[in-house]
């Protein structure tokens, strides 16, 4: 297995799953999970619905404890959300505070972190500018389009200055054009900040387009079935990257895999 660009094998993994099993309501949801999320890597997770990819993300977020096995973050075993781990959900309209403006939603992070009052406004403005919402600071979420609401949720996560971004099908509810532009913008932000990303999606092409590595999962019970390195150069390009032989090959492999898992 070869490594993706920014991932460094030398440094210890940022998040590591060891022999993890999750049982919920008497049902085996995940089994035999051994996985390292490396510093600076963009790790995509694909799989049919019910394969436990969201459960995997909730484990990493500290929202769920494994039934057995161990989960460590920077070498420490964790059981609760960490300050520098941020989560972007698919349902942006439920994840934003509808009674706070865009700026107010970001300010929540600084209020919670105890950032000095005097610094907050500047930092809020800077984060909003970074995701292209500089002009919309005073709008309420309901006054923003779906794509803008998702940018706002991403901005709120960036305000945490996370080491890891956990994303649960963040672009799944958006139309194709908005999705593509957000993918590129997001890759640019990730490249600038060096954030590690754990990206759950059901869209194979999105997984390949964004990631250094793609993990394929299978359901009943949920498990990791295959890991593929993505040997495609960054920056990636919506027009040319999907035409590269390696992209097409990987797409074919994953497609066969998903079909096989469904059959």
């Amino acid at each position: 297995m070869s490594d993706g660009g920014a991932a460094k094998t030398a440094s210890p993994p940022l998040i590591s799953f060891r022999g993890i099993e999750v049982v919920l309501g008497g049902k085996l949801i995940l089994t035999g999970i051994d996985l390292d999320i490396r510093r600076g890597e963009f790790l995509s997770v694909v799989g049919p619905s019910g394969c436990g990819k969201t459960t995997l993300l909730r484990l990493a977020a500290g929202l769920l404890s494994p039934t057995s096995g161990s989960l460590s973050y920077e070498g420490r075993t964790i059981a609760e959300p960490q300050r520098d781990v941020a989560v972007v959900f698919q349902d942006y309209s439920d994840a934003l505070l509808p009674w706070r403006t865009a700026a107010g939603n970001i300010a929540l992070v600084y209020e919670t972190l105890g950032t000095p009052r005097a610094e907050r406004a500047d930092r809020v403005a800077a984060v909003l500018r970074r995701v292209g919402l500089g002009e919309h600071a005073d709008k309420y979420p309901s006054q923003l389009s779906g794509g803008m609401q998702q940018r706002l949720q991403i901005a709120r996560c960036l305000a945490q200055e996370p080491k890891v971004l956990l994303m649960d099908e963040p672009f799944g509810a958006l139309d194709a054009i908005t999705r593509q532009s957000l993918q590129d913008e997001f890759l640019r932000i990730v490249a600038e900040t060096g954030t590690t990303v754990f990206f759950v999606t059901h869209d194979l092409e999105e997984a390949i387009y964004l990631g250094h590595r793609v993990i394929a999962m299978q359901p009943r019970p949920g498990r990791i079935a295959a890991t593929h390195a993505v040997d495609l150069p960054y920056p990636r390009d919506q027009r040319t990257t999907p035409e590269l032989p390696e992209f097409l090959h990987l797409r074919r492999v994953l497609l066969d895999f998903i079909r096989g898992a469904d059959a």
Partner: protein
Amino acid sequence: MRRGQRRLPFDGRALVVPVGFLVLAEIAARAAGYQSSSLPWPSEILTAGVGALLDGSILRATGQTLLSAAGGLAIGSSLGLVLGALMGIFLIFHRLAEVTIECLRPIPSVALIPIVLLIFGLGYAMEITLIAKTSFWPMLLLTIAAVRGVKPRLLEVAKLLRMGLVARIAKVVIPAALPGIFVGFRLAVGAALVVAVTVEIAANPLGLGYAMMRAQEALRPDLVFAYLIWIGIVGWLINGSLVAVQRRLFSGAPHPSEEPAQ
């Protein structure tokens, strides 16, 4: 409603039915030469009402009733809010109190008049106590429901930001539940007015209810009717302003009623 225009805060056509009815009743009564010791002509009711307005008696009585209602409402609804929030957030409180609540709630406020009279005697204290008891319930039950109904996703966001319990309640749970809590408050206000007037009619020598009883004892049906209509108008004005407040508070930052494009 367009801004910058002087207009009634309601559709003027709504006046057609009541005004039309009164005018017709007046015409019919005069034409038939109707006389009664219990059902006065609309014009007599109007005269009595204007008289009571001018001599200040109706306003004084209104002040007494509203003061009691406001006092009871303040006590009852704030208790309901705090306990409702606790029970909505911590399941254990709800479990502990559930049976007690369901046993106490069906007791009519009026049935408590004897015991409250024994404790406080006549006056504001007993009336306020009964109103507090009445407005406590809708506030409690709707606050519990509203807090329970806060989207789990929002609670997860608060958890992921590692917000403390107090911040989580003050910045996430309560604001998210506020539209539902306000519905409880409106119900509490309505109940408070009803109970205030009822207690005044049944026992307490204060306010609009008592004024109506005195008019009845003085054989002044015109004045009784004038008070009745006045109570209706006061209730309508209060509810109207609450609806306006509700609109102002919760439609500026509306909860996304329409789903964004999927």
